[in-house]
């Protein structure tokens, strides 16, 4: 036996303290510490060798300069609001591209040329008909069900629907589809397919009537509902009352199969108004829920809406951004079928009322909320873009966006500093997407009068060596017929004893939306059962999905369809892997 000496060496005491100690030079390991007092040193066991905690933030690398996106949202009063961005795959290659509002500057479509897991690379599409001025935001939606994303572009003035032609080409379709969204200061949008309809219903949210005498206070423009008529859009119908909407979301708040329209309104300009919930029943005129039906008045500077099933009850909670306290509206347990919401922002630590960095103690101004699991730990996170309206002296000027990280106990904690997301530009719309098909959600933030920022999520790693955090699944629900992307449906994912549910919606946020893979962080789960509740209420079967994959679920198929990103073809590159 040839045992070589080894000493001293580093071991961890049972208490967790890392110690230099002498280990006997035999094959028999002995207790290495001879000082009883030292044994009582308490430290975190083994953590010396582990990276950051998953419940903490991933690292975001600012790749704005190298991303190919050079864009600003500019303009005066009309463009204090808006500043949206839409994310969707216009090339059909799987990488989400982005369309960014420009305000007085032209909007721009940037095609995603990133590689799998690599730096974020985009290229502007020149001479695109999408390059309109006075754009406030946009939402992708496959209006005609041809499998190619179309785009709804919101403007100060005429809003425009564009038919996607493939290859990131678009064609104006207002006339072809009979769309007339009015000539207003449009700041909000949502869409759904009503039961039995082959064409979507649009909600158009408008802000202040700039031409009204005595304005701008108390001069909110009417919002519109545009329902289908034949194979195209019918006339727009004004919704009354309207209270200067900044965000709209068709959402099945009570999961009864009939989405209602949640509207976040800006109390800065309305008089006697409040946030609203519009009931839309088949064959019935629209009807706003009132106090008698359990609806509680909410008067905020409502900016953006995001929904997520926080409690696993199949009924979404809504993050609604505002000035000062941000809201987190959760359906009362004893709501008894009524839309009675209580605010849990304080209890869950999502009020985010003041800047957490920069030294400005004045209240924050929140814009775009988005529920997303940025660290794939299975606990949903909440991003809130922040920024002063313009020069409002009562509110913070240095107002960085929040990345509120979901904790195992259901609360959230600020993680933007750790994530490297602190920026003092005035943020507006934003979008999280798996831009480089790495399974990690990266971020694009539109800033007012400053460059749009592009952040790549590199997990625990670095720019050169990204390291994924938890496991994930990306799910896409496809059904035949007009509502191809199952808008109004739900995706339910179950792994172990935990369930995750996401409603498939178009709308909300701060004039920003995304279409494509629906991302679920699933922590340590290695697989999950997934099912879809289709928009007509029918539940599909549970299908089996292996973690860290893109999975398409087709209606009427009992097996999932795996989708493969365009990985580098190592086999044709001289078998470099071996």
């Amino acid at each position, binding site marked *: 036996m040839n045992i070589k000496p080894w000493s001293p060496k580093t071991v961890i005491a049972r208490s967790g303290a890392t110690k230099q100690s002498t280990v006997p030079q035999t094959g028999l390991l002995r207790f290495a510490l001879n000082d009883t007092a030292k044994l009582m040193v308490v430290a975190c066991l*083994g953590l010396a060798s582990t990276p950051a905690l998953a419940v903490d933030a991933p690292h975001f690398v600012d790749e704005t300069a190298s991303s190919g996106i050079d864009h600003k949202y500019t303009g005066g009063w009309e463009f204090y609001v808006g500043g949206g961005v839409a994310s969707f795959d216009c090339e059909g290659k799987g990488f989400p591209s982005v369309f960014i509002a420009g305000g007085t500057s032209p909007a721009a479509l940037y095609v995603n040329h990133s590689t799998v897991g690599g730096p974020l690379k985009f290229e502007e599409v020149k001479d695109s008909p999408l390059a309109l001025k006075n754009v406030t935001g946009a939402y992708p939606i496959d209006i005609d069900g041809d499998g190619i994303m179309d785009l709804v572009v919101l403007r100060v003035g005429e809003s425009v629907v564009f038919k996607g032609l493939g290859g990131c080409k678009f064609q104006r379709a207002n006339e072809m589809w009979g769309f007339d969204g009015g000539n207003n200061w449009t700041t909000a949008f949502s869409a759904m397919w009503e039961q039995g309809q082959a064409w979507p219903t649009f909600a158009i949210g408008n802000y202040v009537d700039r031409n009204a005498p005595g304005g701008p206070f108390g001069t909110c423009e009417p919002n519109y509902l545009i329902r289908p008529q034949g194979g195209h859009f019918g006339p727009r119908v004004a919704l009354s009352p309207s209270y200067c909407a900044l965000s709209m979301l068709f959402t099945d708040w009570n999961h009864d199969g009939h989405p209602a329209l949640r509207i976040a309104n800006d109390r800065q300009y309305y008089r006697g108004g409040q946030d609203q919930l519009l009931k839309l029943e088949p064959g019935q005129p629209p009807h706003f829920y009132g106090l008698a039906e359990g609806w509680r008045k909410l008067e905020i500077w409502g900016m953006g809406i995001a929904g997520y099933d926080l409690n696993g009850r199949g009924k979404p909670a809504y993050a609604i951004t505002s000035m000062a306290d941000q809201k987190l509206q959760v359906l009362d347990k004893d709501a008894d079928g009524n839309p009675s919401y209580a605010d849990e922002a304080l209890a869950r630590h999502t009020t985010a009322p003041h800047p957490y960095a920069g030294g400005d103690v004045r209240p924050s101004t929140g814009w775009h909320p988005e529920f997303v699991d940025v660290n794939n730990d299975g606990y949903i996170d909440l991003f809130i873009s922040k920024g002063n309206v313009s020069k409002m002296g009562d509110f913070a000027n240095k107002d960085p966006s929040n990345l509120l990280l979901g904790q195992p106990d259901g609360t959230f904690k600020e993680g933007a500093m750790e994530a490297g997301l602190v920026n003092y530009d005035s943020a507006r719309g934003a979008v999280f997407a798996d831009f480089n098909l790495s399974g990690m959600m990266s971020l694009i933030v539109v800033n007012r009068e400053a460059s749009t920022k592009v952040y790549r999520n590199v997990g625990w790693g670095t720019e050169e060596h990204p*390291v994924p955090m938890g496991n994930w699944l990306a799910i896409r629900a496809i059904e035949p017929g007009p509502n191809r992307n199952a808008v109004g449906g739900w995706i339910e994912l179950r792994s172990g004893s935990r369930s995750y549910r996401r409603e498939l919606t178009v709308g909300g946020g701060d004039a920003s939306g995304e279409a494509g893979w629906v991302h679920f962080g699933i922590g340590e789960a290695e697989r999950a059962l997934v099912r879809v509740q289709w928009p007509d209420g029918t539940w599909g079967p549970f299908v089996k999905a292996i973690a860290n994959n893109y999975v398409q679920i087709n209606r009427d198929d009992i097996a999932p369809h795996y989708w493969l990103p365009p990985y580098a073809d190592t086999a044709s590159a001289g078998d470099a892997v071996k």
Partner: protein
Amino acid sequence: MKQWQLLAGVCALASVVALRPILAEDAQAPVDPTPIGDEHAVPYHLNEADIEAGKVPLEQIRDFGKLLFSARFTTLDGQGRPGATSATIPTKRPPGQVPMFFRTSGPEADSCAGCHAQPIAGGSGDFVANVFVSPQENEFDFDTVEPELSMERGTTALFGTGLIEILSREMTADLQREEHHAMAQARSSGKPVRVALTTKGVSFGAITCNPDGLLDIKELQGVDPDLIVKPFGQKAVWSSLRHFTVTALSLHHGMEAIERFGPRWTGETDFGGNGVGETITSGDLTALVLFQAMLPAPAQVLPVDAAHREAALHGEKLFNQIGCDSCHRTEMVIDTPFFTEPGPQNIAGTLRPEDVAKPYAIDMRKLPWSKRLNIRADGKIVVRAFTDLKRHRIADAERPHFANEKLTQSFVPVDQFRTAWLWSIGSTAPYGHRRDITTIHESIVDHGGESTESRKAYEALPVADQKAIIEFLKAQQIVPDDTWQADVASAPADATQPANKVQ
């Protein structure tokens, strides 16, 4: 007791403890630095970063891994998970529902070696050592052995598993490479591309790659859609020794690893609620895994008696002739001899190569027992494990014995099992995933499903030829390792981690 008496007592005890090493050293007598009366089974913990940095000699890693494998964990070590279920995903339960030890749903064992004991530590186990595994996180406190609630599993011998895992990694890389290549072709050509997935002579069926990126996996066989060849577990559901070990420590011993149950994922330091907390460090796990990975590969031990020897050699030929080797592959070749830890097939919840500064690498050719291996001139190792690491349907209506389960495990159908490796079968009776078959002959004739043809061929053989096959299989043995304590210092490899994970 008065306070001064208590204080005096404490001081006296402290003096004894503090002075004892000095006195012992003065007397030049052997020193045992263990505190008197100490009942820990784990004397210290290893730091993963130190292992990676080469600060811990491989002898120490191996010996510490062996210690952990044999340790009868105590509550002082963190044994027990009264507040957590046995689920692979950390899952809470109200404490006090079941005893600290519970024969069915666990924890049901004091140590790894309590079951992996035959013929020596690291080996297999008797029927009495069977465990009951529930894939259902919400029905964890089952107190019955009914197959509606759990799957009964015998103990698998771990000898040679380092080579097994390397084999699986290379097979995975091959399959994924083929898949990626076919998809690239489909995308560039705009036409579907069907590719037969074969690695090391083993067919896993075929997939069709569509230009839109969607995969048609209807023809895929014996492996999950992620194409990761998972070599461990009777159902081929564990992708690495580490993956299995983390799970088994929690399930069987209530020893929860920090890398899965610690604050990173649960926000807690005592997720299991045992009052001590999670204590198994990543360094401990690396040692435990490397101990297992370095367990000697079983070998063919031919009988000394000429007649038996002749029969065994003849049996091998018959084994191949009747098609047993179509699944129980007699030879598979490993391209790279390096076992790296953590391995590339781990995903979150089990330490991954991306999580560490540098995976620890061992050159398997330099281990003392490697002289038994068939190492080719090009440095590649020929593995005679008698497995293809693929799942097969091995039961049917005619031979339903192996379909005696009623729950799917990790999406694997009840009648499918990984091809058992037979290179230790001569040392590991009884047989079958439930260890309920007492003879090799019975085990063979219980084969159905995809193995029907070979089984029928076996049954058609003259009895003498059947006996020859059995004699051949009996010769596949775990060899008591007389070189176990030999120097392994040369085995650590400063090898670049084999890039055997595509993307």
